[in-house]
């Protein structure tokens, strides 16, 4: 009997993960809230002027590391917690102010896009991927205790009270950080609240999704999400008509990058701590993780699998 070489495959059985283009660094030049906008164009320009030396430093550092660094810049506008003005007015002001300060904004994103981008519920996709940091002694016997909508980096203080009729009264215990060496820095982050049927994601939660987008680590059934599109001309009057991420400079390097650098005012420090507590518990698809590491290796770059190691900040005070 002769044997034949047979190949047989089923489309529904395959896992395909799209590749997306990657820069070396994604630099966030700022984050705009209504208050910042209402402070006026001059205030915006001064803010960009403070950011500029940090952005230039990022370029310098990377020029020393790779031959031709691909560095893209981005800017996030809050249209989730408060709605103000219109895209054409706000973006017009932003571009004018950044240009005056000598900065180039490659991509502009709106915060609502971190919750749902082009119909894909990103915040929910990320929420489903949370693998809570297990306190010592966790062996899988029971699901980790959770407070609906909250995520912490350790064990909460017991709530006290009595479980059963005539049962023992629980004594107070301090909360404890799981990775504590000697002392704890325990943080409990509110990820969302429900208002009626609507889930309101918290600012650090959406900021965590924002970081994952900038790192190019999110997929929906293997497909890329929140893909940047060229800025429509003219810009729409309604924020909802604006794509999640728009590309302002046609020749800009790719939006997503191996690493991110955010230049933020120090008032965002607690938010970013919370972002890291959340991101430290998001399980990235192994295939996507592998893909990024392999592509880095192709460029002779060692990309850490631990995503927190790929996220950097410059946090000047508010001078």
């Amino acid at each position: 009997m002769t044997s034949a070489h047979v190949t047989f495959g089923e489309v529904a059985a395959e896992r395909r993960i799209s590749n997306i283009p990657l820069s070396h660094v994604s630099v966030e030049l700022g984050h705009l809230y209504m208050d910042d906008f209402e402070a006026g164009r001059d205030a915006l320009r001064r803010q960009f002027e403070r950011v500029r030396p940090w952005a230039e430093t990022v370029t310098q550092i990377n020029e020393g590391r790779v031959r031709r660094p691909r560095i893209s810049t981005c800017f996030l506008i809050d249209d989730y917690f408060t709605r103000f003005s219109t895209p054409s007015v706000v973006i017009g002001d932003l571009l004018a102010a950044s240009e005056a300060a000598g900065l180039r904004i490659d991509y502009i994103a709106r915060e609502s896009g971190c919750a749902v981008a082009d119909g894909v519920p990103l915040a929910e996709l990320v929420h489903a991927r949370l693998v809570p940091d297990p306190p010592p002694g966790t062996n899988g016997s029971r699901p980790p205790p959770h407070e609906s909508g909250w995520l912490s980096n350790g064990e909460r203080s017991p709530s006290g009270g009595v479980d059963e009729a005539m049962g023992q009264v629980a004594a107070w215990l301090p909360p404890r950080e799981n990775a504590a060496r000697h002392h704890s820095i325990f943080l409990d982050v509110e990820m969302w609240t429900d208002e009626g049927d609507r889930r309101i994601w918290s600012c650090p939660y959406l900021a965590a999704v924002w970081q994952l987008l900038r790192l190019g680590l999110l997929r929906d059934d293997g497909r890329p999400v929140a893909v940047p599109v060229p800025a429509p001309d003219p810009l729409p009057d309604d924020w909802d008509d604006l794509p999640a991420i728009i590309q302002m400079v046609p020749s800009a390097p790719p939006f997503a990058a191996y690493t991110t650098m955010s230049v933020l005012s120090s008032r965002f420090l607690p938010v970013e701590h919370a972002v890291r507590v959340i991101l430290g518990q998001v399980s990235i698809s192994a295939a996507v993780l592998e893909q990024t590491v392999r592509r880095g290796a192709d460029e002779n770059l060692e990309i850490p699998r631990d995503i927190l190691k790929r996220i950097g900040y410059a946090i000047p005070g508010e001078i």
Partner: protein
Amino acid sequence: MPSPARSDAGGDGAGILIGEVHTGLLLNSASLRQDMLPAVLGLLPGERVRSFERPISHAVSPELLVGVDCDLSTASGTRVRGIGTLAVRAAITGGRVLQGSAWTRLMGGHAEHRLPWSHYLARPGVVETVGRRRNHPYHADLADGFLDRTNNRKAPGIDFGAICGQIMGEVQRSPYLDRRSPFKAARTTLRWVAEESPERRIGFILGDDGSRTTRITFDGQPISAVIELCEDLALHDWLLSTLLDVIDRGMPSDGPHETMMRRIRPAVDHLIHLWMPGARVVESLLPLWESLDTKPGFTRQWDTLVNRIRDQLALRTLTLLSASAEGVPGRNEQGIRS
């Protein structure tokens, strides 16, 4: 395609793979249709349910991760702390059999203490032991400790049972199922250890209460292939156990025909066509299956049972036919005894 358990972690090579597969009956009146599988097994939004139609309907949920930080079971009773994640998934075969499968790779970690959680999430499906240890006796100690369910000295270790139970429960509570299964069946649990070795070995031990253990070696195959082999083994062991139970109880020789039919019918309708050993096992691991099929001889036993059922059914049908040919008035099926 990289498997999730692949990792760059560990100072001691491949480590050992440990896992558990739980198998039971899907809680639905009819066999689940192929097009319903993605909805029922879509446990992780954004990730695809992989489904196969040939040679038998089979679908696998996306893999979920579960975090642990606990003392591992060792045969010697030595304390070994393990931190990391398990991968767990659910699978449905033939629209009828549900499996919960969890596994992890035990590897020596670099650190003397616990690292930030993001370090472990970067190595999905790996549990790192804390502190440096030498390779072999240490692996054997962990493998033996894991497989021995009776040793009281050891730490309880990772609760694979609870983790498999959790994911199976999630599927069973799916809004797409009606939870009216045509018959009931006990679950079985297969606990397995796989070590990399050029020497080809497989061992299988049948325990009480549906608990089984198996120990295998593999040589260069991807981890996913090893897991699929264990799942296939667990599936067929469950089919055999369930059919044995059905026959044990459904075939007392003097029972009324209707009672016998009520017990045997589900097995005929829902189980018999599911026997397809090795259907999804990679070629290079098939010899392991084949050696198990020689001793103790799974397929041989299965064939014997199936033939017994067929003989009984044929016999009963003949009896029925002859009874109706006699045209006994007022006699129904229920009244006829063999």
